[in-house]
């Protein structure tokens, strides 16, 4: 998540044109504390049962959102792009995401 934070201005235009929602199975208080401590600028959602994670892209292990899938939902509500799993430590993954966002946003 730190990579998202550090590239928030460039990737997500500081949240002005793109809404970033980071979702994990952590309890809400844990996410809120982490967001405060590490100063994440975006929204966190607590999916404690992993229900939403499974709905979007179930992982091989069943009871956790232990994968790093990324989806871009366009203004029409449709999935415009997915990277499953998201290669979180690979800089190219962010380059690819940025290019997709540029395209989706028509910029």
């Amino acid at each position, binding site marked *: 998540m730190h990579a998202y934070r550090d590239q928030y201005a460039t990737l997500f235009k500081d949240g002005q044109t793109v809404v970033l929602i980071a*979702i*994990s199975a952590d309890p809400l208080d844990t996410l809120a504390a982490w967001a405060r401590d590490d100063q994440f600028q975006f929204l966190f959602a607590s999916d404690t049962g992993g*229900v939403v994670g499974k709905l979007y*892209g179930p992982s091989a292990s069943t009871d956790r959102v*232990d994968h790093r899938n990324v989806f*871009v939902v366009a203004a029409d509500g449709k*999935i415009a792009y997915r990277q499953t799993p998201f290669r979180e430590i690979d800089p190219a993954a962010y380059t690819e995401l940025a290019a997709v966002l540029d395209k989706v946003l028509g910029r």
Partner: protein
Amino acid sequence: MRLAMLLTDLSAVTAPVLAQQPGATESQALATGTVAPDFTLPGATRYGVLAQPIHLSDFKGQTVVLAFFHKAHSKL
């Protein structure tokens, strides 16, 4: 003998495929072009816990990135 070997070979090839099928279907992520299913989840920001839950539909008309991640306090 040859037939027996052939059958053995076939089972070696087909068994893993069959075993994987239910999991593979279940583990497929939503495809591009699919309408993103709405959801309602409790939310938080760095300023604290949100009073209202997050609905994906709250952001209709905007571009939204859903980033599923493993666990808080991970360096990744």
